[in-house]
């Protein structure tokens, strides 16, 4: 009995080996279909590869492996030469401990174990300043100059004041729509400060602070909101859809998360041009649910594109709380699934954000890899002026996050403790910004709207005949009935 069992199992072993040998041989021959070459490309190392045959069986010569991975060991499927293994394989080999599947070596285990959907402990959150604005001991001990810190703080305050005043302007009926960044000032300013102006920014819509940092003026913001003739967007978009080619900030587009794969494309373009720059794209917890998020991250990893994915996980997608948006430990854990280095950071800590983005940019460019940053924070304002968030969340929760966890307050405490700031300076700065904003709004309101001619251009590079004809007709019509049309709008 025992004897027959043994011989049976021997046969099984030998058959398995034979099959796998045959499998390995087949992949070396490259003769038949082209699909083989996709498989073999992954397995066989570039040291003396067998000649690559195309689908017609003709030797093509060159052997492609995509971009050679800059950080060699990063790929899980580092290849080994098969020919050696076949020669060394004895007839009675021990059972396979691991197998080189397409994608790389995988170890076997007899333990049937499902990895749990979520760990007991969530991924840790990187923080440098505590809630009192004190540097946490054992931090990464980077130094920030007074100049940079003060500049960051003043911009955070400017952003805060700008939001309050423009929001009020909408409430007064002077502009049609507005969307605030309350609670996310650190994310906006600190991330912008860690980048260079040559890095392309693909925003969602809650990142005007990045524009502010790069030099967009309060007047320019106001012009866009009022859609007047000085608006860089020629009055074509609804408010807060800023864009600036000069500052490398792609015009805000209402469609959620479409900017994610676009950023990957731009990063790919930079990679091809071997530029020392990266792309960064911002999106919220809601945006991370889209198909574009998946495609963008997956592609970026495969293409090894220098792009930073910055997720502003502020807990709310309009009225959808995070518990209805996703299960699993937030967005940071998804990075690993795509093969992307990731970090979770305290979104209310300007220093931590600066440090993380600074390092991410370095990694993205030097190692030509995407990086995922999830900043945990809270959307302290309403989704937009079309929303009243007290309808779906408790007012005291909003208040606690807005006041106690305010990133502006926390950073202020730190720079004050360094003797770089005082209440007096604060008061002067806030009052100055309020005045500038008030003037900017008044000025923007008075400026006339873009000319009617602007309705017809930029559809194509060269205006087509039919649009030229329509423009002519309209111009003639307006001239003929001038009294029916507003006199302060040019033709």
């Amino acid at each position: 009995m025992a004897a027959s069992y043994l011989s049976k199992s021997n046969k099984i072993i030998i058959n398995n080996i034979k099959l796998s040998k045959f499998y390995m041989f087949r992949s070396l021959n490259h003769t038949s279909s082209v699909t083989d070459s996709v498989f073999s490309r992954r397995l066989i190392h570039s040291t003396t590869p067998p000649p690559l045959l195309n689908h017609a069986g003709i030797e093509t010569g060159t052997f492609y492996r995509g971009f050679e991975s800059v950080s060699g060991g990063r790929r899980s499927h580092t290849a080994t030469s098969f020919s050696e293994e076949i020669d060394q394989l004895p007839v009675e080999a021990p059972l396979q401990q691991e197998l080189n599947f397409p994608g790389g070596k995988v170890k076997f285990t007899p333990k049937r174990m499902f990895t749990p959907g979520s760990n007991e402990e969530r991924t840790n959150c990187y923080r440098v300043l505590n809630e009192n604005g004190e540097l946490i001991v054992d931090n990464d001990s980077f130094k920030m100059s007074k100049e940079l810190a003060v500049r960051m703080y003043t911009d955070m305050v400017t952003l805060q004041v700008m939001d309050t005043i423009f929001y009020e302007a909408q409430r007064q009926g002077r502009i049609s729509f507005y969307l605030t960044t309350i609670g996310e000032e650190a994310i906006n300013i600190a991330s912008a400060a860690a980048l260079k102006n040559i890095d392309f920014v693909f925003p969602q819509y809650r990142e005007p602070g990045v524009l502010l940092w790069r030099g967009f003026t309060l007047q320019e913001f106001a012009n866009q909101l009022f859609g007047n003739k000085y608006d860089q967007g020629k009055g074509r978009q609804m408010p807060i859809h800023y864009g600036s080619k000069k500052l490398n900030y792609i015009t805000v587009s209402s469609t959620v998360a479409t900017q994610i794969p676009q950023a990957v494309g731009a990063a790919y373009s930079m990679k091809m041009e071997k530029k020392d720059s990266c792309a960064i794209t911002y999106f919220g917890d809601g945006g991370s649910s889209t198909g574009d998020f998946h495609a963008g991250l997956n592609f970026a990893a495969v293409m090894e594109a220098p792009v930073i994915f910055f997720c502003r996980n502020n807990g709310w997608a309009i009225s959808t709380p995070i518990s209805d948006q996703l299960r699993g430990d937030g967005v940071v854990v998804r990075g690993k699934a795509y093969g992307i280095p990731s970090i979770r950071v305290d979104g209310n800590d300007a220093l931590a954000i600066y440090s993380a983005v600074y390092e991410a940019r370095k990694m993205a460019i030097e190692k030509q890899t995407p990086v995922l940053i999830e900043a945990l924070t809270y959307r302290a304002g309403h989704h937009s002026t079309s929303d009243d968030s007290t309808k779906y969340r408790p007012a005291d929760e909003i208040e606690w996050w807005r006041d106690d966890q305010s990133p502006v307050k926390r950073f202020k405490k730190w720079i004050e403790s360094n003797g770089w700031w005082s209440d007096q300076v604060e008061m002067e700065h806030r009052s100055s910004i309020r005045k500038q904003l008030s003037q900017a709004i008044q000025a923007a309101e008075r400026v006339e709207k873009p000319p009617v001619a602007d309705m017809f251009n930029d559809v194509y590079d060269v205006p087509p005949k039919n649009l030229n004809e329509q423009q002519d007709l309209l111009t003639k019509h307006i001239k003929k009935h001038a009294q029916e049309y507003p006199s302060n709008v040019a033709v």
Partner: protein
Amino acid sequence: MWGILRQKVGDTGLSPQGLGNQMLRLRPATSAVRDYSAATKEMTVRDALNSALDEEMAADPNVYVMGEEVGEYQGAYKITKGLLDKFGPERVVDTPITEAGFAGIGVGSAYHGLRPVIEFMTFNFSMQAIDHVINSAAKSNYMSAGQINVPIVFRGPNGPAAGVGAQHSQCYGAWYGSVPGLKVLVPYSSEDARGLLKAAIRDPDPVVFLENELLYGESFPVSAEALDSSFTLPIGKAKIEREGKDVTITAFSKMVGYALKAAEILEKEGINAEVINLRSIRPLDRATINASVRKTNRLVTVEEGFPQHGIGAEICASVVEDSFGYLDAPVERIAGADVPTPYAANLERMAFPQIEDIVRAVKRACYRSV
């Protein structure tokens, strides 16, 4: 091959352009007649597209191709054959399966200055990516007030093939043709394919390039001028494939061939039909169509797509707007049946216009008994 051809041209002592112009004058309007003069050769639509891509990629290092199976597999329909070997994986990019993903990535790279040619395995799959084609590409120049232009080409087979069922047979000419900011091209012959694709790649605006799977293998004569690497066709100009005086038939893509065959049948019955190859759905060459209708006074439009809101509807409206007084009969629209495409061969045949349908429609327009 091209080198030998150019030598031949040089030997005659004429410049390639000069010879080409002569060729154009000598060449008959219909592509059904084979021209055997010295410098004419035949070329399949597939080779025409391949050569156009090859030349444009060689001329401009910013042009690159991206799509599923375009690289190692040499293209799902072999349109991109040989390009991976010649230009490398940086410029011929095989993608994971996500049209939304690679369309968005293509648009993003165009924002930064590359000139992508995105291949959809068929335009049916472009529905997965249509938000990027329309909202990210077509509208960007306008919405950014001229700051962001998108020199991208989306190409691939469009419309029915043979026995591929409802989800692989829809025509998207009407959908894309309605969007301002896009240009939509529909080549028929090899010369159309070469000239229009080269023009599309060089164009600063986003272009949707609708090919036809069944035409890929068809051969057409190409002039020496068309083989030159600087050859392009103007976007927005239709071509009169066959001149006539009794009725105008407009068609695009595969239906041009059907219309020409129908015209031959009609000729025997004394009806002299003018066949217009649209070449471009957006911009639509209203001038050529209207001039033709003013000459013949009767119009039949042919398309494979669904009838409601189709290309024929737009052409009919355009003619009614511009040349109402010239029409001697109501406009006849021939389109695909208003059903998702059936698979069974006999049903599929009945779901799309056949040559007999075009003949009957022309006779109706001419008030002849059918």
